[in-house]
């Protein structure tokens, strides 16, 4: 089943056309990595998918339901009430975590499920505690984010996103703000999630990781998808010259 389906999305900032004509769909249980040079529009694509940014034209469906329809070449969003329902469909993990600094680790994780999803408090706390333990943060429940390492903070952020029970989880360069050692610990978490068939879309510059974990790799350049397919095809035998150049530069 297709969890996410975006068709012909276009997005312009002022005069700058950032997304030119992008279509992407994500199957349930699929792990998709998005690669591409800086400024190619990867973050913008994720931000449109997570509704932090509105698209100019194109359509978007979550779980087969229209979030954004196309009316005469213009994107038209679902009503505010319907949007609320779609908000619980996905989660987003940021490059710089964006944890709430005035909340403890536990409160960061449980506050939204309790207050925006109105779920049972006891159930949420129990599940969150369990998840944090599995993340190796069992002894940090009462810590504040500033008392944690970057890797620990990112693990809290991932747990916070997972606590919402999203069907699909987006990551925008989840390791870019981390040291190499800390990067490793986050990639490990992502691999574990992939193994448990969590549907994920990951923007990353970690080529080896992308090759190992992804079912599909998408390469973006200048607002277009210029190549996509199995990791061994896109990463090891890219057809497109620019993909090859980019990968060479990264590995050198």
């Amino acid at each position, binding site marked *: 089943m297709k969890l996410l389906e975006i068709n012909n999305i276009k997005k312009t900032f002022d005069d700058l056309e950032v997304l030119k004509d992008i279509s992407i769909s994500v199957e349930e249980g699929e792990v998709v990595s998005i690669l591409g040079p800086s400024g190619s529009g990867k973050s913008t694509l994720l931000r449109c998918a997570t509704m932090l940014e509105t698209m100019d034209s194109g359509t978007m469906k979550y779980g087969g339901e229209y979030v954004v329809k196309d009316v005469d070449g213009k994107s038209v969003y679902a009503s505010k009430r319907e949007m609320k329902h779609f*908000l619980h469909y996905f989660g987003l993990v940021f490059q710089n975590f964006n944890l709430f600094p005035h909340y403890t680790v536990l409160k960061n994780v449980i506050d939204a499920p309790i207050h925006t*999803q109105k779920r049972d408090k006891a159930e949420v706390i129990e599940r969150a505690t369990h998840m944090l333990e599995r993340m190796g943060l069992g002894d940090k429940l009462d810590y504040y984010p500033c008392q944690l390492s970057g890797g620990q903070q990112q693990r809290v952020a991932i747990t916070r996103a997972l606590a919402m029970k999203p069907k699909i989880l987006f990551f925008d360069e989840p390791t870019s703000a981390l040291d190499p050692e800390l990067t490793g610990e986050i990639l490990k978490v992502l691999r574990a999630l992939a193994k448990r068939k969590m549907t994920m879309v990951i923007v990353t510059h970690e080529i080896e990781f992308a090759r190992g974990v992804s079912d599909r790799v998408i390469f973006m350049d200048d607002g277009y998808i210029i190549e996509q397919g199995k990791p061994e095809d896109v990463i090891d035998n890219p057809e497109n010259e620019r993909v090859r150049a980019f990968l060479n530069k990264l590995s050198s």
Partner: protein
Amino acid sequence: MPLYEFGDIMKNIKKPSKNKGIIAIAVMATLLVPSLMTACGVSAEASDGFGWFFNVIVQLSDGMLASLELFALTLLFSMPLGLLICFARRSRFKIVELIAKFYISIMRGTPLMLQLLVVYFGPYFVFKVPLSTEYRFYAAIIGFSLNYAAYFAEIYRAGIEAVPGGQYEAAKVLGYTRRQTFMKIVFPQMVRHILPPVTNEVITLVKDTSLAFAIAFVEMFTLAKQISASESNIMPLFVAGLFYYIFNLVVSFVMGQIEKKMNYYSA
């Protein structure tokens, strides 16, 4: 003959009533006792010592209460009002934003003393409402509150803008409504950001209460000046200064404690 009347008011300062809160007296008394002791030691030979000094305190106590009252009520009204003005200043509607901007620029760009005079004499000039003694008190509180609200609004605004955009984005993705985002995420972080500038404002307010003499509202400073003039002695003014100083020590201490409390996390 408003100007004549203004001068008249200045001359005939009426003693305010004595039935003010006992708690406030107790607070001020405990506040002043240590400084009293030392001050008495110094001035013992200059006048007749403790008795005289105590007498000054008693004479000034009504003024102290009035100042305290003015201070507390101004904070009580100006802080929430400042938040409203801050919202208006950040409004999506251009007109609302412009009105708030204009209000703030007037309040910050003209002397507080002038504003007090306008609030006090305005109703008389415009509506021919007769001036009354009670209205002095209200005028002082209205004038101070309107003025300080403008400053607080700008402090709040800076505090809100110091909250990183990523906080709003995280909140949005987690499904928080705009209202929840403000109440749960933005406001607590804003409070932390604004504590130091708010402390500054509060300290300034302690001293600014003395400006209420402009509309002949009998607060601490007005009384001290009066007694000082009638007894040809600088000491009452010195005691007044001591009052403001100790008052501000307390303010700094309290705000410092609050800041410490808020430091449970660092941003």
